[in-house]
Structures are given as structure tokens and as C-alpha cells.
């Protein structure tokens, strides 16, 4: 690969920003670069990172999925409810994943066949899935104290926390899918120009349904990690997390217009947000400021991206 090609890779730039941030934070606080804090950070980042992978695919295709937080909660609640009646944890997990994928399928069908814009369709699902989670639980949080989920939430494998493996596998699979498969090519084509994609015979509707199913599936996967970490499934879990996932994708430099960007940058975007939160916590700065700062980072990220594309 030529040098110019590498230089134009968005991943290189965003990685540089992340490394710089890590260096600055490790100078500001001796506690930042400790094994304990890094473990903590990777656990914090894992949920948003998994959601951001799905969100990145959706945004590259020119869409948006606002329902991931609620779908996460619904999947978690289904897992919790099944554990409550002594269902095997593996089967409960599969059921949770199925529910998330199903919610994605519904999103996809409403968007393609119902011709409802993704923003509206997934906003509807945001309410529906959260409401169903509350209906199922009647508002109470189930405890999940089975070894399977406690292992996912707390154990380490080869010195690294288990949620990190979920993140790595997610990004590996999604990246390979997006860059080497026909489906991935279609995601970029649809995001580039949906009308052209349709004209050239791409099964746009079918591929869009798959895209939202993938996002739903990953929301459910995040629910599995979340259930492990909390050892419980409160129906109000992960409220507003969809905005964090979208922010991670945007900070990573994926174009909101669609058609451009790579999924891996969303992981770095999520990492940058987590580092800001974590760093300010360590430095003892009020969490109120964190929201202000992350808001500014989002705007600056898009502004820088605009500057780059104007060239």
C-alpha cells in the first residue's frame, strides 16, 4: 500500500488523536495508565463499542438506528426473565440474541416496505422495545447470578477481561464482512447512492433489512455483556446509550451522509469518549463537565472532517 493511501486512511488520524489523549491523561494522573484502570476502561468501553460497530454499518449505509439502547434493554430483560425460571443460560442468551435480531428485522421491514424514514422507524422502536421491557418485568430488575453471566462480567482470560473479547470478535467479524463480502460492498453502494444501487440491480431492500438485523443482533450481544457486568437486568438499563454509540461513530470520522468511513474508527471513537469520561473521573472533575466536553468533541470532530473533505 502506497504512503498516500495510508495517509488518507481515517483510522491513522483518529488513532493518533487517541494515543495523544492517552499520553496527556497519563501525564496528568499517575493512576490513568495502571492495569486496574485500563481493565476498568475496557469494561466501560465494551458496551458502547459493540453498539457502535452496528451503528457504523447502519450509518455507512445512509441510515440511523436510534433503537439500540431499548433493544439492548429488551434483550437483557428476556435473558433475565428466562434465567428467573431456571432456563439454561446458554439458551437464555440465544433467546436474547434472537429477540434483538427480530427487533432489527422489524426495523428493516418498516423502513423498506413501510417506507418510513430510518430516524422515525427506529424512534418508534426505541419506544416499543423499552415499553415491552417494562411490560415484561412490570418495572422490576431481575437478578442474574448464574456463573455463566458472572464469568462474562467479571472473569479474565489471558489477563484480559472477557468483554474485551466480545469487542475484538465483533470488530473483526464486522470489518471482514464489510470489506470482503458482497453484502459489505452493497452497504457502501447503498450509502453512496441508493437510487443508483437500485438501478444497477442491488437488492436494496433485502440488504437494508440485513443491516438493521445486524444492528439489532449487536445490541443483543451488548445486552449479554451488560447482563454479566450488572448481574441484573433492570428494564431501564442503557437509556440514551444510542446517542453515545452514534457519537462514537461520528467522532471516529464515519460520514453521516453515508457511503464513507470504516467501522474500526468507531471503536477508537468509543475509546476516546471513554477516556475522556474516565480521565476526568480520575482527575476529580465533575461529571457534569464531561457531557459538555463530549458534546464539544463531537462538533469539533465533524468540523475537522468537513475541512478535510473540502480539500
Amino acid at each position, binding site marked *: 500500500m502506497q504512503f498516500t493511501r495510508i495517509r488518507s486512511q481515517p483510522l491513522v488520524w483518529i488513532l493518533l488523536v487517541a494515543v495523544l489523549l492517552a499520553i496527556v491523561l497519563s501525564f496528568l494522573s499517575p493512576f490513568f495508565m495502571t492495569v486496574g484502570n485500563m481493565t476498568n476502561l475496557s469494561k466501560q468501553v465494551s458496551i458502547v463499542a459493540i453498539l457502535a460497530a452496528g451503528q457504523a454499518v447502519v450509518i455507512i449505509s445512509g441510515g440511523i438506528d436510534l433503537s439500540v439502547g431499548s433493544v439492548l434493554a429488551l434483550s437483557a430483560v428476556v435473558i433475565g426473565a428466562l434465567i428467573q425460571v431456571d432456563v439454561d443460560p446458554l439458551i437464555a442468551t440465544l433467546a436474547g440474541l434472537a429477540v434483538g435480531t427480530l427487533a432489527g428485522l422489524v426495523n428493516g421491514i418498516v423502513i423498506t416496505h413501510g417506507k418510513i424514514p430510518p430516524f422515525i422507524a427506529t424512534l418508534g422502536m426505541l419506544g416499543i422495545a423499552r415499553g415491552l421491557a417494562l411490560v415484561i418485568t412490570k418495572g422490576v430488575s431481575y437478578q442474574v447470578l448464574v456463573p455463566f453471566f458472572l464469568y462474562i462480567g467479571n472473569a479474565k482470560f489471558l489477563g484480559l477481561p472477557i468483554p474485551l473479547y466480545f469487542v475484538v470478535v465483533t470488530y473483526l467479524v464486522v470489518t471482514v464482512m464489510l470489506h470482503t463480502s458482497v453484502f459489505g460492498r452493497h452497504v457502501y453502494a447503498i450509502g453512496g*447512492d441508493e437510487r*443508483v444501487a437500485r438501478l444497477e440491480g442491488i437488492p436494496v431492500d433485502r440488504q437494508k433489512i440485513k443491516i438493521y438485523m445486524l444492528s439489532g443482533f449487536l445490541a443483543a450481544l451488548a445486552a449479554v455483556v451488560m447482563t454479566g457486568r450488572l448481574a441484573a437486568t433492570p428494564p431501564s438499563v442503557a437509556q440514551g446509550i444510542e446517542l453515545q454509540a452514534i457519537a462514537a461513530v461520528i467522532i471516529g470520522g464515519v460520514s453521516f451522509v453515508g457511503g464513507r468511513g470504516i467501522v474500526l474508527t468507531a471503536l477508537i471513537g468509543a475509546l476516546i469518549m471513554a477516556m475522556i469520561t474516565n480521565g476526568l473521573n480520575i482527575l476529580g472533575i465533575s461529571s457534569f463537565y464531561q457531557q459538555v466536553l463530549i458534546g464539544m468533541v463531537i462538533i469539533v470532530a465533524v468540523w475537522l472532517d468537513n475541512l478535510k473533505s473540502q480539500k
Partner: protein
Amino acid sequence: MMPDPTPLVEMRHISKHFGGLQALTDAQLELYPGEVLGVLGHNGAGKSTLIKILSGAETASEGAIFVEGRKAQISGPNDARAYGIETIYQELALCGNLDAPANLYMGRELHKWGFLRKKAMAAEATKALGRLNIRIQSLDVEVDSMSGGQRQAISISRAVHFDTKILIMDEPTAALGMEESKMVMELTVELKKQGIGIIWISHDIHEVFNFTDRITILHGGKNVVTGPTKEFTQDEIVSMIISGLAVERRTSAAGD
């Protein structure tokens, strides 16, 4: 040039109405291998409806289409494509965020078990562009960063890549500069040599006059005249487009 006896395409007695509006009445079109047929008419004359029926974007209310002498059922763009009919649109139908091979194979990607065969597609794209003498510096740059002419060349090369016999070019030079229009026309001559029949739709009378072998003029949804381009003067063509009245010619073949 003597046309081949069996036409590539015959559209017979085509009528089309949208509700109460009669867009086409008993319209005819014949296209022979290796010729450029100019379809002329002012806005609302029915030429775009006629072409859309052939490319599968619309279906005729009445009439029949024959491809190489056999009756063809065209009820969608994919049907038309299956008969070897491809369309090039004026508004450059490419995905700007993808490179040339990706655009060339869009919707018909080469793959093995769902995984893209990128090398094979790049190699084929190089060959396909080379066959038409299209020069593009690098295959793996986004087509958005290419010139209008290069992009139109990619459209054309995509359109003729998959066993195309009939190529509909809907104002292919409208969005291009003079040099680039010339390049597109040179490409079209190349395609003629390969025996592809080309339907050329344009508002530029000068271009049509110099470039097409035969013309058919539509007015009010009906054929005014069909015949070799050189049988008419440029002024006569303009007057027929405006008035809808055929200029009398001893040798002319106005319809059947």
C-alpha cells in the same frame, strides 16, 4: 450502410396512456446492429416514454416488442437487461464513493461464497476499459475524483460489459464539456464496430445530424418520420420536430 435484415429491436404499435393522457399512439421503432439511431422530439413528444418502455422503466398499454425477431416480455429493468438492453442516463449513474471496478460490477459482483473476488474484478475492469481505449490513471480511486468524461466512460463500459446488444443513451453528453463529448462519441463509434445497436437521444440537433445513421422523429406521441439522417437537412429536421409534419422525400421511408 445497408442495415442487417433482422432488426435487433422492433417496437410495434406501441401505445401508452397515463390515465387520460395519451403519451404514445401506435409508435414504431426499429434498430439494426451496428447503427446509431437518433430519437428526436421536443419535450412531451413521447420519446422518453418510448425509451422507458424499452428499458423496462414503464410498460406499454398496447403493442409488442421484438428482440432479434422474438417477442420479448419486458416488465422491469432486469427483464430488459436479460435481453441485452442497457441504458446510460445523462445524470451519470455511478456511486461516487466507490472505485471503477466496484461500479463496473455493481449489483453483479464476482464472488465466491459471498466473498468478493476483488482481484478478478480489477483485472476484468482493466480489460474492459482497455477494450474501449479508456485511460484511467488508477483503478482504486473513487470515481467522484474523476472527470465527467471518465465517469461517463465507466458508465458506458459497464453498460456494454455484460453481453449488451442494445444500448440506449439518454442524452449521454448533456452533462459533459466539448472534449469529453467527443470522447464519448468516439467510444460509441467503437461500440458500433462491435455490432451493438445504439439508440441516441439528444436535444443537440448538430450532434444528432453529424453522428447518427438514421433518425426517427416523434411528435405528439406519434412517429413523424423515420429514415437515414443524411436524407434530410438540419433545417428540415428542426422543422419536423417543431411542426410534426413530415417533409416529403421520394426515397424516404416514413413509417410503413
